[in-house]
């Protein structure tokens, strides 16, 4: 079935079921406006058509609340929207149909005061104790400063799921963990060493990103987007800039697109190197940890030398990039790619042949393809459990529309699979960097910005190193941001951790966690 076919078929089905859909065309996608009463039924039909639930968010627009849900199939994204009155907002939940929508709806409930009827879990999520019970920070009448107490009390009364029975005990961990790592709370129920249940409680690093985005200029928004999750600064910045550029209707110069591609692949390689080392470290295989962290350091030093920032922050700006490559830089990067590939080809066999590592990584942290699909997992977490998706291939954007590469796929669903997917992705990235350098032709790196019409909106979708990133942007008058919502891949992947640790032993939690490596900051916003 061709891509445009499924939307036609799907719309026909909805019409037959008396679900009216008003269609609008947005710069990057189509918008389907649906009556709020049909919101859940719409999800039922979407699931039957095997659409993937991608992201959900809301927006307060002049006395009304827009509730959005994005779906995808075969690389075609549609944005669906229901509109309710802000006075007593209610909407049937889609989480009953799509488990992936659950936390997102709870976030919307906490930030906008929308009641999702029939939602399987009405507990607060992003809300802890920093704003009052009937306050909703993303409503327009809520001031950005809020009305916080001098000291925000901890959220101690959160109703965790309880387990009872002989020998069952609880291990509460966090928010502050033992290592150099972001904060979050994990509640384990265990018998002996075996994990019976894990519940995540996140939201500790909620910094009000969505709220402080409002009213920003495009440049200031790009800077903020680059700090949604520091390890994904290129990915988020690119997604936000794509959304802003599409909303404005400007095309970035080809050279800028290629440079963005190089930045994004460099970010992917750096993070995968770091994670592969950390996974080995969590099973006490220090040789590999030291080798990978050495390679990562060398890679970051090249970033600093060539692009002027080790993590590549603020290199992507609305309209293009503010960095460039000389011929000498290109030669340096190419040599570095060859060297990295050679070094990895020496290190990987030494790792592969190590039986103690095999013992710990194989079969640990198993995520079945069914659960991976139901939760809508993306990136290496999905790929390691057979979820064959990659925005760079499925909905290609410049420069990936002119590149060829293979999407890494594994099917065992364990820690080892997630490890190997990363290795394959590094190899693919090295090839892509080479292709992009070969295509670099002289030219501009920055397009001139134009003020977009008030109300223009768009979705920026890119493949970050953790997987698909969605950025939604709507402009106000005067070149100001009215709404920014970034959906980090972690938002879809975190729930998978609760599943994949089951029946593992507590001491294997760190390596299971590292193999998924969700971003707390990208989740909590």
């Amino acid at each position: 079935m061709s891509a445009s076919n499924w939307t036609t078929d799907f719309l026909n089905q909805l019409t037959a079921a008396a679900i009216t859909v008003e269609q609008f065309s947005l710069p990057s996608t189509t918008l389907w406006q649906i009556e709020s009463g049909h919101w859940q039924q719409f999800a039922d039909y979407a699931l039957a058509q095997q659409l993937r639930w991608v992201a959900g968010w809301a927006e307060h627009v002049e006395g009304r609340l827009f509730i959005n849900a994005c779906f995808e199939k075969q690389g075609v994204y549609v944005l669906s929207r229901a509109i309710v009155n802000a006075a007593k907002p209610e909407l049937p939940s889609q989480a009953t149909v799509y488990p992936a929508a659950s936390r997102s709806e709870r976030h919307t409930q906490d930030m906008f005061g929308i009641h999702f009827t029939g939602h399987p879990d009405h507990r607060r999520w992003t809300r802890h104790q920093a704003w009052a019970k009937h306050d909703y920070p993303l409503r327009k009448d809520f001031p950005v400063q809020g009305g916080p107490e001098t000291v925000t009390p901890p959220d101690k009364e959160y109703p965790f799921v309880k387990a009872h029975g002989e020998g069952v005990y609880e291990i509460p961990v966090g928010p502050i963990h033992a290592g150099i790592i972001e904060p979050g709370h994990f509640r384990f129920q265990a018998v002996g060493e075996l994990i019976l249940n894990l519940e995540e409680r996140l939201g500790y690093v909620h910094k009000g990103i969505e709220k402080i985005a409002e009213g920003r200029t495009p440049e200031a928004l790009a800077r903020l987007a680059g700090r949604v999750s520091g390890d994904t600064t290129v990915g988020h910045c690119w997604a936000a800039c794509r959304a802003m550029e599409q909303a404005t209707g400007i095309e970035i110069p080809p050279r800028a697109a290629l440079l963005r591609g190089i930045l994004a692949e460099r970010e992917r390689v750096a993070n995968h190197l770091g994670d592969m080392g950390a996974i080995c470290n969590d099973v006490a295989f220090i040789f590999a940890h030291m080798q990978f962290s050495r390679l990562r350091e060398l890679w970051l030093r090249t970033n600093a030398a060539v692009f002027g920032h080790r993590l590549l922050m603020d290199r992507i700006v609305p309209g293009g990039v503010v960095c460039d490559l000389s011929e000498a830089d290109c030669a340096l990067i190419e040599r570095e790619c060859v060297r990295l590939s050679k070094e990895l080809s020496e290190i990987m066999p030494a790792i592969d042949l190590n039986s103690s590592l095999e013992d710990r990584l194989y079969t640990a942290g198993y995520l079945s393809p069914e659960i991976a699909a139901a939760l809508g997992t993306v990136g290496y977490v999905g790929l390691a459990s057979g979820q064959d998706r990659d925005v760079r291939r499925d909905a290609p954007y410049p420069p990936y529309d002119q590149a060829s590469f293979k999407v890494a796929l594994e099917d065992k669903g364990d820690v080892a699979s997630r490890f190997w997917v990363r290795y394959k992705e590094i190899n693919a990235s090295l090839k892509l960097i080479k292709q992009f350098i070969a295509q670099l032709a002289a030219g501009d790196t920055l397009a001139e910005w134009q003020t977009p019409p008030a109300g223009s909106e768009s979705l920026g979708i890119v493949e970050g190193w953790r997987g698909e990133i969605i950025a939604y942007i709507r402009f106000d008058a005067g070149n100001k941001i009215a709404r920014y919502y970034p959906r980090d891949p972690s938002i879809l992947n975190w729930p998978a951790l609760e599943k994949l640790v089951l029946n593992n032993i507590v001491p294997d939690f760190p390596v299971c966690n590292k193999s998924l490596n969700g971003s707390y900051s990208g989740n909590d916003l």
Partner: protein
Amino acid sequence: MLRLFKKIITTGVVTEKYKVPKDDELEKLGIQIKRHIDKQFSGSIAIRQVDAGSCNGCELEIHALNNPYYDIERFGIHFVASPRHADVLLVTGPVSRHMQTALLRTYEATPNPKWVVAVGDCAACGGEFGVSYASCGAVANVIPVDMVIAGCPPTPHALMKGLLGLMKG
């Protein structure tokens, strides 16, 4: 196993030399506490790192301090798992309101004498996030801060310099 040893031998030692910064450099880092630290902890300090709301960029660079190029442990600076074992708290991020109590408790749990180093622009002044309904802004708005290492994020080199400044020269 032979492959492994071969790689270790051919890699060699990559650790780099570092000098303890001079006094005027230290002033730039805003250290007011060096003398006390010299006296109290000659030769070794234990650090508890606390992410109080960062974007995780600062953590990546703090991690890098333990890679073989910087290998910060050789200077007697080590990261510990509990604030009760720590001399220094290395705090990153604007302090999110949801982390405020946790940070205060960590501070209380750290035995005296103790020092707080605010790492990164967010910890120094709120950075891109500032003060809002969700963020307390700078670390100094929540607990007393003795030293600031600026940068977004500070490079491992800047962190090394700052932390070595805490130690006896």
